[in-house]
């Protein structure tokens, strides 16, 4: 048992934290949010310069081959600063998927550009009705000549509009929730039949709905074995959940600190409102929630690559439940304790709150993961 980080990991955490504090101020972020794309290529290049885009890329393809604990530390820091660039989507999720599909050619094609940050490759999986269920795929890829024709609809794809290339899950056989029969295809977002509708989400991030209508792709665009992608997708989701939990933990830490500061400086009835026991106890509970979430974020990082599937699923779902509930409690109480000021766009806390809210709605919410936990027997 050991809760310490290696020197390299501490250095990584310090580096990203410094980037957030010095290069990603609230005002700077505001400017980015106002821009047409909703994220900044310059900031992205800075993150790439710190090595973050290469973090989860295998060494053989020019990456650092770091693990989920490194990703956790990065996400902690990015969460604090509410960084909106596509680190999670392009530098965590896509490498996790690509590494699990065992397709040397696709890996050799895609990883180098991912590692440098020059190419943004986005995994488009979620569909209306998915709600976290990784096997829910209704998008179909029918064999046609020496290629496939893809029809379907992907929704709220994080940074879908920024993609130079999409990795689309589509069913080559089976019924909508079968684990078997799901395949991954490389799709050019500019190809005929692909309609990408980009929009901003409430938390300041960007996402897209991707409609695929009779999209013709060559057989070579299939990544990995046909119909066998589900375990790779599920494994990718676990890695992504772990990263999201870490992001939430970083946000909660920041939220608790700003709430504490605010209640110490805000005076009512002639005293700082932090003097009131009802608020002290609320903040004690916020601390307690964030401690439990931190514990589960550790568990998630350790277990998201566990070879025992049941152990992995139970741990990650348990983590998502605790983090989702904590995020809701801490976020809601932070707004409450900031009073009217918490309602305003002017304060960071309302932005933190919105991201915490979004995290519980992403990759399966608390109810979904409670059910998945129940459905998965202990090892």
């Amino acid at each position, binding site marked *: *048992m*050991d809760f310490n980080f290696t020197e390299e990991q501490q250095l990584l955490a310090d580096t990203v934290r410094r980037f957030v504090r010095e290069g990603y101020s609230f005002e700077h972020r505001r400017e980015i949010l106002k821009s047409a794309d909703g994220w900044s290529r310059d900031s992205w290049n800075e993150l790439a310069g710190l090595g973050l885009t290469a973090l989860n890329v295998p060494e053989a393809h020019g990456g650092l081959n770091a693990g989920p604990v490194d990703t956790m530390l990065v996400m902690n820091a990015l969460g604090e600063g509410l960084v909106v660039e596509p680190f999670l989507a392009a530098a965590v999720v896509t490498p996790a998927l690509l590494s699990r599909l065992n397709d040397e050619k696709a890996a050799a094609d895609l990883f180098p550009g991912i590692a440098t940050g020059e190419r943004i490759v986005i995994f488009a999986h979620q569909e209306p009705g998915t709600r976290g269920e990784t096997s829910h795929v209704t998008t179909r890829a029918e064999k046609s000549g020496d290629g496939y024709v893809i029809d379907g609809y992907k929704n709220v794809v994080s940074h879908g509009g920024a993609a130079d290339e999409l990795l689309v899950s589509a069913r080559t056989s089976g019924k909508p929730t079968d684990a078997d029969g799901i395949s991954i295809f490389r799709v050019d977002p500019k190809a005929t039949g692909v309609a990408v509708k980009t929009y901003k989400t409430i938390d300041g991030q960007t996402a897209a709905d991707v409609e695929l209508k009779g999209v013709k792709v060559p057989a070579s665009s299939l990544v990995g074995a046909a119909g066998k992608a589900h375990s790779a997708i599920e494994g990718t989701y676990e890695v992504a959940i772990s990263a999201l939990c870490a992001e939430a933990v970083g946000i909660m830490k920041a939220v608790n600190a700003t709430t504490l500061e605010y209640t110490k400086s805000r005076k009512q009835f002639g005293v700082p409102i932090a003097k009131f026991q009802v608020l002290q106890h609320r903040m004690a509970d916020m601390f*307690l929630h964030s401690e439990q979430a931190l*514990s589960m974020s550790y*568990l998630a990082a350790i277990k998201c690559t566990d070879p025992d599937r049941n152990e992995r699923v139970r741990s990650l779902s348990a983590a998502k439940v*605790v983090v989702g509930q904590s995020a809701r409690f801490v976020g809601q109480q932070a707004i409450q304790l900031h009073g009217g000021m918490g309602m305003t766009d002017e304060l960071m806390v309302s932005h933190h709150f919105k991201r915490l809210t979004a995290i519980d709605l992403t990759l399966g919410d608390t109810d979904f993961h409670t059910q998945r*936990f129940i459905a998965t027997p202990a090892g």
Partner: protein
Amino acid sequence: MDLNFNAEELAFREEVRTFLREKLPADIAKQIKSGLPIRAQDYTRWQKILHERGWGAPSWPKQFGGTGWGPVQLHIYDEEAAAAGAPRTIPFGLKMVAPVIMAFGNPAQQQRFLPRILSGEDWWCQGYSEPGAGSDLASLKTRAERQGDHYIVNGQKTWNTLGQHADWIFCLVRSDPNAPKQQQGISFLLIDMKTPGITVRPIITMDGAHEVNEVWFENVKVPVENRVGEENKGWTYAKFLLGHERTNIAGVGASKRELERLKAIASKELKNGKPLIEDPLFASRVAQVEIDLIALEITNLRALAQEAEKHAPGPEASVLKIKGTEIQQALTELMMYAVGPYALPFGRASSEEGDLRTVAGPDYAGPLAATYCNFRKVTIYGGSNEIQRNIISQMILGL
């Protein structure tokens, strides 16, 4: 970062498991795993078995006859003992007064009291709370007046746990009523329960149990040599003791055992002809507690790791107390709801010792409502959960 036990720790766990398998009396384990109380002599019997093995005081340093185990080993031991159905440690001697005697007592006191705690010969109880001094403990009024070589003690203590079996009581008493701050006039006395003038009166709690007492002191003569540390410095020792009281307060091992019992009961009970455990609403309540317990276990391990580095439990122990007791209460509540109306019949089928049959309904249902009632105490004792929130806001948040 690694959440797994290392090879040495795993070997230790195996050693503990083997010992428990071989030495834990089956009748005691059965009683505990059925959620039923055990007798005072069962606690003493188990303490003697532990003592023979050299494990009488897991949390003591070696020089006083303890095991010298570190926090991780202690945690493993606590987990395994709880899972096997071993009696909980009655904390008053081993975990409360002993650390105070070790830290602040003189060598004569250490030689006189510690070996008898270790062997289980002396049963200790606590004289802290008073009718007017609960969370505000420092306002206590029990008076100790110095008369030559003795203190004359007068007053009343309450919520004294299991004092009806006790040989000794450690007490906080007011030795200087004129001290400028009430914390400054308190002394820490060790009192023989056989001393004339002590009266123990049972308080029957709502579950029908006799677990707590009032203890009255009427001109009780206590030799000055039974005072620990300096006169009027007792509050310092009391605070030290409260710090120790919170270790293993998370109770993860016992809660894991109770979670398994809950699942077993919910698998036997039916709803609409199907096992209750398959009912989505009930299953989600059970899952919530199980998930909270997983988080608590890791929070507890983090606190242990920190304790191993800093050599003292920090204020984070308050987090463990709050979450640990909330989970304990949730488990007793769910078990009671799991059996529905058969939680209500109260009493045994006969008064014969060892007869686990309940007066009506399945035997496992018999004690559940009483336990639910009894466990309302856990968020009140040991520094109420509101006091723990005060500690978090003062010691961690700096308010």
